[in-house]
């Protein structure tokens, strides 16, 4: 069955136009709750109040403002904000390609699948295979939901995945953090022992082996509450908090 698309557009690189469809790639396993008044179980509604007049305000009387100075706003309407989106609204313009391995994962933000669009099956397949052959990812910009994004497109299984990207100035460098200094550096024996522990715990990554167990716990709690039984409380060993690093490493090796 064909999946529903969120956006239809074109990947343009040079004189080649590849029609594509954008699809959801990720569903969150978060359990969604709604707010409830504990006393009577009634739903909570959010209402807009004017902070000055202390009275409820209908939606039509609300505008969007940007704070230029404390308590001083410039009112901006929807058309103004839409104007920032840019003009080429349904084209992913490929600027260049890079080796996919050079991109640090911290830059990847949201991900969507891209499939072939109408009339472009061959061009889609060609672009995908050419990138896959070289391990390359395409970098371009596109506008989605009225916002322009930097995007990286790379092969994923038999299709493409497009990531919206974070910009370099949005990322906090490690040097910007205050980190307490350790007085004494780890000694050779500790490094050797920790290295052995890391190697003994090394395994092949198997994504399917990990599952959101906490979600299961929440669902069990919801069931228990519905049946009027006690809520499950998970007991786990939190371990000793030892200051003797070497002893802790040695004990861990024995346990692993």
């Amino acid at each position, binding site marked *: 069955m064909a999946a529903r698309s969120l956006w239809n557009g074109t990947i343009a690189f*040079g004189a080649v136009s590849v029609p594509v469809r954008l699809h959801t790639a990720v569903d969150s396993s978060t359990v969604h709750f709604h707010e409830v008044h504990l006393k009577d179980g009634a739903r909570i509604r959010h209402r807009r109040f004017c902070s000055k007049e202390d009275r409820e305000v209908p939606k039509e009387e609300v505008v969007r403002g940007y704070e230029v100075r404390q308590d001083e706003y410039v009112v901006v309407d929807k058309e103004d904000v839409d104007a920032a989106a840019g003009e080429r609204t*349904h084209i992913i313009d490929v600027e*260049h390609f890079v080796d996919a391995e050079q991109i640090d994962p911290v830059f990847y933000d949201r991900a969507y699948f891209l499939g*072939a669009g109408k009339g472009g099956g061959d061009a889609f*397949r060609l672009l995908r295979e050419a990138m896959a052959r070289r391990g390359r990812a395409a970098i371009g910009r596109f506008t989605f939901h009225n916002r322009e994004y930097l995007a990286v497109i790379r092969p994923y299984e038999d299709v493409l995945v497009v990531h919206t990207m974070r910009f370099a100035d949005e990322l906090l460098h490690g040097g910007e953090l205050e980190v307490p200094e350790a007085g004494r550096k780890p000694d050779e024996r500790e490094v050797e022992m*920790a290295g052995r522990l890391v190697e003994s715990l090394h395994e092949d990554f198997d*994504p399917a082996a990990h599952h959101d167990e906490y*979600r299961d716990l929440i669902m069990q709690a919801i069931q228990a509450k519905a049946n009027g039984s006690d809520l499950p409380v998970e007991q786990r060993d939190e371990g000793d908090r030892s200051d003797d690093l070497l002893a802790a490493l040695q004990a861990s090796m024995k346990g692993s």
Partner: protein
Amino acid sequence: MPRALWNGSLSFGLVNVPVALHSAVRDLDVHFHQLHAKDGARIEMRRFCSEEDREVDLDEIGSGYDLDGTQVVLTDDELESLSPARTRTIEIASFVDLADIDPLLFDHPYWLVPTGESQGPLRAYRLLVEVMGGTERVALGRFVLRTKEHLVAVRVRDGLLALTTMRFADEVRDTDGIDAGGRKPPKEQLDQAVALVDALTVDWDPSAYEDRYRKRLQAIVRKKQQGQTIKAPAQGEQPSPTTDLMAALRKTLDELGGRGGRGPSEGGAGDADGGQELDRLSRDELYQRAREADVPGRSSMSKDELVGALTRGR
């Protein structure tokens, strides 16, 4: 330094390190507030009980869930006491290779900063940095942040421990319903396309890109402040799909001429013979071989590409 989002401990075997979690992303977005048009005062959202029609404090509110038509309500205390250990400890269970994790699984990046005065845990933090820093090893763990459990990858960046929350594999949809395109491209066409990709290839330089959307929005706010009106740009036209791929590829390559990018870095195009026995293996078996041969980019390769990469590597 902004306040930590979470405080807890990183546990590794029997070693516990108290750590604070900080987002690695700063919010540079242009934010707007809701204002009352009449007097320019800020709008506040107030919570009302829909039954009693009166304002309700946060501590009178619980979490409702619709279980087959029946509402079940959990209090904050009940939710918090479900699994104290998961909410306080990032437990490292194993170490894996970074190259084996498809970037699609990465979600939000954070920094882990050691806290507390005690010298033992500080040294333990340094020890992890030292041991993992020289390798491509990533520590895998899990913890609960704001009622959502995350698989996390901890690795070394800038001499510190960097944590990235990950998506669980069952949160990623399969690609079955996605149109993978048409015919396998003829060799000549693919060679031309690869040549074009090569000609347009540069080194990844994240600082080369600025957020044009943010810049434009800031400019629009400045213009509004000066009382100017904003005109939305016209919509661009949608190009039609390329029908003659070969002609379009040649035209683009000609136009690029000597400009070029970094140029081809690896030789050998086309699937050479010898892939036939590999063709019979499953993707998992091929992936295992690719891992042994340390094939770059293997985690996101299809079965055919794994065969191709392994054949070329011989």
